[in-house]
């Protein structure tokens, strides 16, 4: 039996490379969602990690850090907030759904 693939659609999912169920402490939205100001998650609404190990949406933590009263401290642990370099990359996850992968015989 010969199988000829006529068409297939790859579907990729991504998520930030951090523990699954984490929410941003500032907006309380899941990290895979956006900060309240953004529409699309991903590179347009990045995460920022502190050297102290706490993560936030970049937009959320910058909103906080620009306050004088923030005194440059991490909202979680009050250590001086310095971002860890480089920020988290997205990790591709190709395991889910190769929908449209057809095995039409032809």
């Amino acid at each position: 039996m010969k199988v000829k693939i006529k068409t297939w659609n790859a579907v990729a999912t991504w998520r930030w490379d951090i523990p699954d169920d984490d929410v941003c402490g500032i907006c309380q939205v899941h990290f895979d969602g956006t900060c309240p100001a953004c529409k699309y998650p991903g590179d347009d609404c990045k995460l920022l990690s502190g050297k102290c190990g706490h993560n936030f949406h970049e937009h959320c933590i910058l909103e906080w850090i620009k306050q004088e009263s923030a005194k440059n401290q991490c909202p979680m642990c009050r250590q001086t907030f310095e971002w860890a370099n480089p920020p988290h990359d997205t990790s591709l996850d190709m395991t889910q759904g190769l929908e449209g992968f057809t095995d039409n015989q032809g």
Partner: protein
Amino acid sequence: MSFATKRLGKELSKINNSLPPGIELVSADNFEEWFLDIRVLDNNPLYANQVYRLKFKFSAQYPIEPPEVVFVKLANRPIPIHPHIYSNGIICLDLLGQQGWSPVQNVESICMSLQSMLTGNNKDERPAGDEEFVRGNRLRPKDIDFYYHDNNV
């Protein structure tokens, strides 16, 4: 929708699901003003069998800015006696001020802090200068520059 609205929406759905013991939502009709009742969980004689009403006011900058939180006096809701709580309901607590606030705090965590602030107190007294302050103060709580002279209470 503003930042504050979205964040408060999140908090409200969590609150509607469950709240820690001794904390109850009274009303949250909008995203500007909420009322909650709290009581202490131990048998501290200063607060036994009493329920206290809290009023939260949120600005559009919440949670970057702290909410304004005061006790409200009603027929069956007194103002708890405490060396950091004025008899008009204004609370002197560092985490509610610009200095001590952190945007990871939320309505629930504030209620719990206030519960423990009461639980840990054994002084049957108002702050120094209470009468004068209550008579003369026209400032909103967030504009009052409290002097945190005693961090042990």
